Every structure is written in C-alpha cells, then in structure tokens.
C-alpha cells in the first residue's frame, strides 16, 4: 500500500471518481492547468480536459452558484474554494440556495455538490487564510459537514461525499496537508459519513476533536500519558450529521470530556458537543466539560502559535479534567 499525504489522497479520490462517473466536474480558482494552489487537482486537467476541470474567475459566489445550477441539471460538481476564508462571498448561495433546494422543491431537486476547501491556521496565513468557519455550516439544515484528519479518511470520505445526493462542505486541514502521512489503499473504497472513529482507546477521559487538531490531541495524549493519564481520543470525521452514539458511549465509559478545536470558542462547534453531552449524559459526568479552542479574537498573524490550541494546552485540560 502506498504511503501518501492528504493532498495525494484527495487527488486520487477525485481521479477515481472522475474516471468512474462522467458527471463529476471540478471548478475553482487555479484548479485547472495549475493544479490548485495546494496541488490537490494536479494532473486532472491533463487527463480529463478543460470541459471537466476548469478555472474560474475570483468570484466565489459565481463558483458555487454555477455548481448549484450544474447539479440541478444532473452533474456532480466538486467546486474548490481556495481557502475557507474566501467562502463568505458564496455564503448566501450555500446557506440560502444549496442547503435548501431539496427541501424547497419537495425532494424534486437534490443538489449533489461537494465544496472542497482548506481551512485552519498554522501556515502563517494571517487573518484571511487561517479561519475555521465549520460551526456556521453545522447550524444549517440541509448541509453535511465533513473534516478528515488523515489521508485514508480524506480519500474514503471524499468518495462518499461525491456519491451522496446532498451538499457537503468538505473541509481539508491545510496545516497537515503534507505532514499527515499514512497508508492509503489503491483503488476504490469509501468511509461512511456520520461515523466517528476512536483513534486512541483510553479509560479515564474522552477527548473530542477533528481535522488538524486530532494530531495535536494525539501529541497531548502522549504528554499526559507520561504523567500517568489515560485519555481516549475520538476523531469525529463528520461534524454534521454527528455520530452522537460513539461520543456518548465513550463519555458514559469515562465520565470526563475535553473538546479541542481551532475556531473561536464562543459559539464554536465545541459548544454543540458540550451541550449535547450535558443534555444526554449529564448524570454520567464526573467533571465539567472543558473546551480548548481558539480565542475570541480575529486570527492573529504574529501570535499564531499562542492562538491555536497546542499539545501543552490540551494536555493541561486533560490533567485538570481528569483530576477534577
């Protein structure tokens, strides 16, 4: 089995699906000849041509609007928004059109659009190339929100997303695009949406995370382990629909929870996780749920390392919650 990074896994998934299904098309800024600013669409223009892999102007509302129209006419577009920070101009198209079409048409028009977009900090990108806007999309009925943390999941989840009938916001953790490497099977396989994965078993405490933060939490667990702590780590993989069963099963076992994400804490996705657990498993809890998150400031350029939850910050929360 080849060892690939997330970029290679995403590229392979796109190639497999485009070979299998002529309805799949890719559009976005620099995705064609150039192969994408992060190289995720490398080689696809050469193999499938300009009718199926094409460059667009810098006009995100146009990219997503066009993709919606193409999907309504039977194609399966996979638009790329170059950075999640640039998704806001297309926000109205996503929240008011894409998410609602199937419902508003009484089921007549499903909109199978998968929006791929790199998110998150850690690349010295400053305010406009570092944001994590997942929570807003998770609040919008009609969308699915998927965030892989590793190459295997990236490929399998992307294939599942493209084959689904509903719109998916597929957010890729750009900080670990190349750093997260792993064995990826060649050929076709899928990872189902809506299923979380236990990446480290433990008895004492449950750590909930997704995307690049999974790697931070694994490091934090190694730090905490040295001091005798035994956390369980769950990679959510799909934020909407959330795999509440896997989360609650773990919480009922451990009685303690730490949630980690890069996005600002207030009204971040961790709030939903904490609220859901407090509603459904309060009597299993032996300590208050702790959230380790980005701060409620715009993403800073110079203080990036202080802003993003570090292994030390997560490890501290693990220790404090375990000792509560």
């Amino acid at each position, binding site marked *: 089995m080849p060892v690939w990074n997330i970029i290679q896994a995403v590229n392979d998934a796109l190639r497999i699906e485009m070979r299998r299904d002529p309805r799949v098309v890719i559009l976005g800024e620099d995705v064609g000849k150039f192969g994408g600013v992060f190289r995720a669409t490398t080689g696809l223009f050469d193999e499938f041509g300009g009718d199926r892999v094409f460059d667009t102007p810098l006009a995100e509302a146009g990219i997503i609007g066009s993709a919606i129209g193409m999907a309504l006419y039977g194609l399966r577009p996979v638009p790329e928004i170059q950075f999640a920070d640039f998704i806001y*101009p297309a926000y109205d198209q996503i929240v008011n059109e894409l998410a609602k079409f199937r419902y508003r048409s009484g089921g007549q028009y499903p909109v199978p659009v998968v929006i791929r977009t790199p998110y998150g900090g850690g690349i010295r990108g400053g305010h406009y190339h570092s944001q994590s806007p997942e929570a*807003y999309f998770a609040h919008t009925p009609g969308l699915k929100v998927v965030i892989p943390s590793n190459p295997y999941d990236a490929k399998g989840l992307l294939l599942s997303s493209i084959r689904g009938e509903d719109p998916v916001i597929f957010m890729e953790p750009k900080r670990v695009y190349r750093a997260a490497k792993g064995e990826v099977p060649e050929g076709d396989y899928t990872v189902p949406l809506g299923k979380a994965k236990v990446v480290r078993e433990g008895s004492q405490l449950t750590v909930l995370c997704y995307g690049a933060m999974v790697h931070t939490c694994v490091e934090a667990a190694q730090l905490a382990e040295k001091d005798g702590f035994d956390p369980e780590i769950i990679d959510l993989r799909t934020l909407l629909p959330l795999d509440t069963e896997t989360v609650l099963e773990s919480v009922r076992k451990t009685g303690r929870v730490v949630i980690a994400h890069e996005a*600002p804490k207030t009204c971040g996705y*961790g709030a939903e996780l904490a609220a*859901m657990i407090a509603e459904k498993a*309060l009597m299993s809890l032996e300590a208050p*749920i702790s959230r380790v998150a980005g701060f409620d400031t*715009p993403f800073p350029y110079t203080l990036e390392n202080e802003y993003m939850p570090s292994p030390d910050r997560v490890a501290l929360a693990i220790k404090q919650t375990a000792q509560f």
Partner: protein
Amino acid sequence: MARLSYREALNQAMCEEMERDDSIFLMGEEVGHYQGAYKVSQGMLQKFGEKRVIDTPIAECGFVGVGIGAAMTGLRPIIELMTWNFSLVAIDQIVNNAAKIRLMSGGQFKMPVVFRGPGGAAGQLGAQHSQALEYMYANVPGLKVVMPSTPADAKGLLKMAIRDDDPVIFIEGERLYGVQGEVPDGDVVVPLGKADVKREGTDCTIVSWSKMLTVALEAAEVLAKENISVEVVDPRTIKPLDGETIYQSVRKTNRCVVVEEGHGFSNVGAEIVARVQRNCFDDLDAPIERVHRMEIPMPYAANLEAMITPDVPRIIAAVKRVMYLPESKPESKPQSKVE
C-alpha cells in the same frame, strides 16, 4: 415614561442619537422615502434630510461595505438590512472587514457601525426569509450581537450600540415591532453585555431572548398556575454574553431550559449550555434542555411553521422534564393559526 411600540422605541433611539451627534447617519433599502420596510425610520428623512437618511440600491454587499468605509473615516453609520436573511450576501464584508479592521490596524481604525434589521420568522415567509442567524454572527470575534425583546430594551440598547466603537449586529424581532411597552423618556441607555431577569422564580431558569422571550414568559405564566415558579432570564446581548446573571439564577433554581428561535444543532443555546454546565456543574439537578426550531428549513405552510417553532406547550413540557414532573398535556400539536 411613555407607552411606545418596539418600532417607535427604535425610531426614537436613532432620532435622539442623530440629534446629539452629526456623524451618525442611516442607510439602507427603503429607509428614506418609503419610511422603512417596517416603518422603523418613519419621519427620519423629513427630519434629517437626504444626506443623513440614505436610500440604497438592493445591494447589501455594496452598502454594508460603504458603511464600513464610512466608519473607518470617522462617521458612525447605522446600516439597515431589510431583514437579516439578506445579510448573507454581505457576510464577507461583515466577517472579513468590519469584524477585523480594528485588530488588523493595531487599533488605528475604530469600527463604530451598527448593522440593524429584523431577524427570525414572521409568518409564512418560507425558508429564505425566516432565518434566525444570531448564532453565525456570535461565532465571529470582533462582533457584538444584541437582541432586544422589549421596547425599553430596544431603545436603550440601540443607543449604546450606536455609541459603541465596535461593530454591532443588532437583531430586532420581526414579530415584535408592534409590541407595546413602557419606555423611559429621554436619554436612558441599557448597557451591552448585561442580562435582565424578566421574571423572578425559584424552581427553574428559562434563558430566552427576542421574540421567544415573550413565548417563554407566557409559558411561565401558565406554569405559575400549577405552582411552578419559573425565573426567566433575558441575556439581551448574545455576545458578549452575561454568563454571571444566568449562573446566579441557575445556582438558585438548579435547573435550566434554553429557548431560542434558531435551529437546534450548533446554536446559541449550545454555547449557553456549555457555559452553564461548566460554571454550575455541582448546582445542576437535571440535564439542561434546549427548545428550538426543528432541523429543517422553515416550511411555508402555516401549520408546519407552527409545528417546528417553539411554543408554549413545548416550553412547558421541557420545564416539566427538567423538574422530573409528569407531563400533563401532550406536546405542542400543529396549529393552523399564526400570529
């Protein structure tokens, strides 16, 4: 003290502030000659003239952007969005410019702009005109989010929002404009970030805001007849959230229900529950419940709209669940009548 409607209270707040400070102006779709889509700006064009009450084209991204530029150069714009649903076309300006300029410029540029307009459902306006979007803005650092539920709060909070040097998302209740209430005369302000206990009680805390607060108060009234004493806390400002007032109430009642108009997943209630479980962990005698809009886009049909929207029976049922009381009535059934 005068008896005013919510819409009149907002009008008074803007007029008084504009009389006080020449740098304030109002801009938006139909705010001038038409006197406001919801008549909030009634009479303002006549009073302040076309330079300070400005009609715009139907281009939210454009006039929100112009407002941001005006604020950077020393003015204090009030930008009216006909409804918050339409702000999604301008959300890039709000999230990426208004919310960030102060930090990006190292504090050199203040951003004293108020974006105001109605939010929430108003009866058979369908999926795209009924959204409660406070959650999205509350997740954006740099923004304040204010949601008054009474005419007095509407006036006092809007005055403070206009005087604030940061961008404020001011979401009015679309079904509250006609609500009457006592409003203090003259320059009485309500500070941002301060919750208000709208009804005192001892058995259970309900946290709710905007239109849903009025529904929660109705539920509290019904429950009082069954000898259940509910305390109703109105955060008034969603961000910054006055957690302390909510915690004090929960420490007294030991039970909490959050009622809001937004959808149930990843909502403002989630943030409140997350904070309450953290700060009142040993005070809680029952899991916290959230009552909210169901997880589908808003239907057009009146009976379905009523069914997915929180109502008195659903709030009562939630309060009884957290009090471990048997439910006396079935949960809300579809109604054909919509206000």
